[in-house]
């Protein structure tokens, strides 16, 4: 018996015209896991979700839910529920009827339907609008109704297709937290599609980054943020400073890149056995780890990588200072730091500075393109 709630085995989606929407998607999701799909629009994340829901046919590969094959089972026979971006609330039914609908088709006895609907209405605080139709609901209420309607049937997996996309920023934040708490309480597996990286990172136990129909990386949020495995992830997730060059040495847990600013080292984000010296590579440094120093500042005991540059601008926003540093005519970097870290150190526009960071924080990725 498998421990996974959801398994995707080499799932592919090819449209009749020959367009490949999703290529060789492999994923294993444990019970109760919150997994986010993130990527730019058209990357295949929604298509993949719709294949799991059964709303889109699977060209090849296998879809397993709790070990059972559901590859070609129609939507209504899958133990999943889907929350849509536009909520797709039935406009001719009241809130109560919307929630009860999924139970009624399962021939649940009517007193049981009433009990379960009441529980959901109470849990999601829809009591005031229980007998109203969609037209009378606010955006947040519609969102909660869509959620309640999906949860009342007690699905094994809840699929959410950009469910917060239509909400304003404040509501979005609070519902993000509610969703996370709800998921923890229910212990149901959530698959959450979003185009916002911050949402994916803050909500997911693991995050799947997709680009052009392919999975770029599947990692826990912090690892994804600090240890990208591909140039796309390095650019799409987080605020990384990226310097290109050629791979010099490859060792166990350590690699170096020859760049135009000298030799930079870091942790390889690739399989060391698969790479050869001389290959195009990127040194990726999360900007949070980069310090701005004068060239004559003493360097402590830790070995640091550094590059030299000239300060071109300093923007002060309250306690925060944004320092723009020109490294050469191809690369300007903008760093965020605090006023008290920089004040009184003789750093101002025009200063020659050194950017320093611990090479342990650097990730080296291969640049195929």
């Amino acid at each position, binding site marked *: 018996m498998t421990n996974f709630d959801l398994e995707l085995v080499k799932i592919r989606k090819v449209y009749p015209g020959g367009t490949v929407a999703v290529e060789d998607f492999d994923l294993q999701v444990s019970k109760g896991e919150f997994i986010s799909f993130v990527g730019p629009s058209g990357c295949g994340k929604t298509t993949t979700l719709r294949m799991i*829901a*059964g*709303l889109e046919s699977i060209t090849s590969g296998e879809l397993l839910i709790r070990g059972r094959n559901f590859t070609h089972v*129609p*939507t*209504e*026979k899958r133990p*999943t*529920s*889907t929350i*849509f971006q*536009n909520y*797709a*609330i*039935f*406009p*001719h039914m009241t809130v109560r009827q919307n929630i009860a*609908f*999924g139970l009624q*088709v*399962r021939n649940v006895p009517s007193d049981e339907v009433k009990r379960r609907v009441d529980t959901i209405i109470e849990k999601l605080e829809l009591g005031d609008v229980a007998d109203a*139709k*969609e*037209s*009378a*609901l*606010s*955006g947040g209420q519609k969102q909660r109704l869509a959620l309640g*309607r*999906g949860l009342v*049937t007690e699905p094994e997996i809840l*699929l959410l297709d950009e469910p917060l996309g239509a909400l304003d920023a404040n509501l979005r934040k609070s519902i993000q937290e509610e969703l996370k708490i709800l998921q923890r309480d229910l212990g149901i597996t959530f698959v959450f599609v979003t185009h916002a990286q911050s949402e994916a990172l803050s909500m997911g136990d693991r995050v799947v980054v997709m680009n052009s129909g392919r999975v770029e990386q599947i990692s826990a949020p912090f690892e994804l943020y600090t240890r990208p495995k591909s140039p796309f992830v390095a650019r799409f997730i987080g605020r990384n400073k990226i310097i290109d060059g050629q791979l010099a040495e490859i060792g166990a847990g350590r690699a170096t890149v020859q760049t135009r600013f000298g030799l930079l080292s870091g942790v390889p984000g690739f399989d060391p056995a698969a790479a050869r010296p001389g290959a195009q590579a990127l040194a990726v440094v999360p900007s949070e780890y980069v310090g701005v120093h004068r060239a004559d500042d003493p360097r402590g005991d830790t070995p640091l990588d550094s590059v030299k540059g000239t300060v071109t601008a300093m923007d002060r926003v309250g306690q925060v200072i944004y320092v723009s540093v020109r490294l050469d005519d191809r690369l300007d970097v903008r760093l965020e730091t605090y006023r008290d870290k920089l004040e009184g150190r003789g750093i101002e526009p025009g200063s020659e500075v050194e950017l320093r960071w611990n090479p342990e924080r650097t990730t080296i990725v291969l640049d195929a393109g």
Partner: protein
Amino acid sequence: MQQLTATRWVLALYTALFLAFLYGPFVVMAILSFQQGPEGGPQFPIIEWSTFWYKHVLGFAPPSRVAPLPIGEALTRSLTLAFATMVVSTVLGTLTAQAFRRQFKGSGFVFYLVVLGMMVPGVLLGLGMALVADQMDIARTWWGTAFVLHVVYTYPFAFLVMLAIFNRFDKGVEEAAWALGVPPGRTFRKVTFPMIFPGVLSAMLFALTLSYDEFPRTLFTGGSEVTMPIAIYGTFAVEIHPNLFAFGVLTTLFSFSLLAVYGILMSASVRRANARASGIQEDVA
């Protein structure tokens, strides 16, 4: 400003003429239906105002030299035929439009095949059907051959109305129902159908009215038991009396009451839709 006023006058005149031609015949007919009877004829001047011809139509007038309109059975036939046509055409039209929501092989061909039914001249179609029926020894009846042609004629109208309705239909709610575990058949009945109902109502109205006063197709295929339009036409051949006008007024009033029912049902669903739309606006604000 001068020019604007001139344009307004021209448009006003145009509108007045339009209304005069549209409703003039009916108004004249309505006035003449109150002609004195049985001596008064279908022309001005009005000898004396009376409701004699209404009584005559309804069979309350004393026997006179003017024969009563042969409408009793013909009216029942026409209404039965129109109702049956309405049901069959609307069901067929809705199902066909549902099929057209997905592209299928030969969909273009099938589209023209269906729409052909309203494009082919009615007289030719009626004549053709009569010939075929004779060849194949099929009796020509209002409930058989004529009924088939009524469906052929009204089904494309119902189909086109429903096609337009489905064009604006959000597939998302159906997907939501499937995702809740509702099988497709039940989704259609419980979700899709209630939402497209205003369109179905329009399709029904089209089919009903088109069939009710259908003439050329029925003329050749209706057989000896005639429908309303054929019966009326038959009386023209002898002599026209104002009882026809009285009958015309009565059927028009009947049509208006049908339209009123349609209007009430329609505005109720439009109100619901508007409420929905304003609900969305509130969200944006």
